[in-house]
């Protein structure tokens, strides 16, 4: 059997590759591993080990501020992820199911610009805009945070949905049209079912991104609107106890769980296609 010549070259065999790779992983994950380990520390130090205990998890669980911030984070992330994904789905459909025209690339960059614009710039801009609106309307609820989060989550939700649409065989939609499906029915019975994994992936990505945000939230939030990340940031300025480690660990697990689901959904998108 003829071997694929491309297979004979492997980057793995370059000298020093393995060493550098291991070192990179070590630097990336050692701090996180340390953080997780000290979450189970029985003492009050985050540097000196005093035995195994779950007391910091318990203390976080009983901390009303932590609970409030967590609930607020989840509320904002859920609503923002749904809004962002809905917008991203429409945007992805509009930018892929069309014949290429002048300005399409410009629209791509417009959609993705939140990924490139420094977050602090967006944060300051939103702070100024929202403070005006707050004065005019007198409203100071969670709506501002939700609006801000929805906006910067759109490109994250957009990417997997667009990728899915671009990989989709266009002849499937053509076949549906050929079989008497109106454009709406084609979308309802063919495009949408095939797009679901992309939409779910976008939804989860947006959820995680929103959950994790500090900079924009810090600038946009009103008093008493701490999310979990901004609450933690506030606490770190004072006393640092392993309670932070415990909260971070739970947070990490939640993110990992979502990323794992995301991975399994996006892993076998169209491999079953004929």
């Amino acid at each position, binding site marked *: 059997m003829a071997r694929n010549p491309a297979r004979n070259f492997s980057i793995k065999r370059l000298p020093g590759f393995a060493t550098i790779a291991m070192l990179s992983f070590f630097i990336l994950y050692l701090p996180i591993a340390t953080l997780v380990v000290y979450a189970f520390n029985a003492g009050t130090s985050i540097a000196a080990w005093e035995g195994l205990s779950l007391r910091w998890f318990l203390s976080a669980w009983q901390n009303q501020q932590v609970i409030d911030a967590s609930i607020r984070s989840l509320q904002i992330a859920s609503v923002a992820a749904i809004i962002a994904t809905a917008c991203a789905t429409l945007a992805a459909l509009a930018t892929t199911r069309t014949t290429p025209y002048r300005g399409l690339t410009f629209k791509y960059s417009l959609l993705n610009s939140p990924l490139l614009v420094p977050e602090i710039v967006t944060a300051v801009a939103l702070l100024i805009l929202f403070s005006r609106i707050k004065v005019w309307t007198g409203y100071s609820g969670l709506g501002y945070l939700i609006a801000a989060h929805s906006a910067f989550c759109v490109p994250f939700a957009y990417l997997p949905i667009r990728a899915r649409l671009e990989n989709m065989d266009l*002849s*499937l939609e053509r*076949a549906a*049209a*050929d079989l*008497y499906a109106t454009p709406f029915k084609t979308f309802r*019975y063919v495009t949408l079912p*095939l797009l679901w994994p992309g939409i779910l992936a976008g939804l989860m990505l947006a959820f995680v991104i929103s959950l994790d945000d500090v900079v924009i939230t810090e600038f946009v939030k009103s008093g008493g609107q701490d999310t979990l990340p901004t609450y933690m940031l506030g606490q770190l300025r004072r006393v640092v106890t392993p309670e932070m480690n415990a909260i971070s660990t739970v947070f990490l697990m939640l993110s990992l769980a979502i990323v794992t689901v995301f991975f399994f959904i996006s892993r076998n998108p*169209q491999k079953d296609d*004929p």
Partner: protein
Amino acid sequence: MHGIKKWFGNFQAVDDVSLEIRPNEFFTLLGPSGCGKTTLLRMIAGFELPSEGSIRLDGAEIASLLPNQRPVNTVFQNYALFPHLSVAENIGFGLKMLGQPKAKIAAAVAEMLKLVHLEGRGNDPVTQLSGGQQQRVALARALAPRPKVLLLDEPLSALDLKLRKSMQIELKRLQSETGITFVFVTHDQEEALTMSDRIAVMSHGTVRQVGEPWEIYDRPAERFVADFIGDTNFLDVDVVAIEGERARVRLASGAEIPATFPADIRPEGRVSIVIRPEHARAVAPSPAAPLAGTVHDVVYLGTDTHLHVRLADDKTFLVRQQNARSGPCGFAVGDSVGIELSDDVAQILRD
């Protein structure tokens, strides 16, 4: 179909094509890739709009209708089965979109599964089927709504040779059982000859010749058609006389033979004729043979032997001898041979 033209930018994909496809006919558009046959098919399906011209179905103009408004279904080259639906849901898709009641859809699906020999596979995901089975599901899906015309876009090209042969017979059977008009696109001349009632040979966006398979093969109207289909010998000859539907032509050797010609021309002077290799026989040199030459190659092919004979004017003439008996064919390189022709096998080409 009348006066169809299609431009993509400056490129003219289809140039003034007029065709009449008859009811219940197995009609093939045959041509090399890029000849416009698929574009033509896509215009019948409604995926492309003609730049000019009209497409009528049973007298009704359909050229500007959307694909879902035409009683025409397509079998796609890559099948385009819906991967998220089962075999039965795929087959029933068209009827469901037409708003048929569930019971009627189920009955039609069962009938289709039987027609394509996939009984009992209705609940399988289409992704679990082999290439040949997916092909049959694609056929059943397109046939289930009983379209007036079924379009087939090189549907057999992804199958291996053996499967392709059996699907050719299967397609022909389906066509006669359903009585639906099939319009089949292929670049495979053998496929076209095997299945078609009539063939349109296309090249560079135009239809070169329309006819029954034997007409296309034995009476090619021009060099492109003769060359594209099968092996061919071209000879330059002089027209001596026209006698009704035959012309008498004089070969380079001086021998005169009758030749047919396309109805729309009156041949005169120097013309080209074609003679198929199997219509010639190599014999011992004899003054009675219209052609003579020297064997310069003998190719044994099992069923046939190909003799490459160099004629007096240095042109090569291919003779296909059927190996009716076992053993070598009896001619060797360097032999002088005469070439006899069967009756009425020469065809004059339009320039």
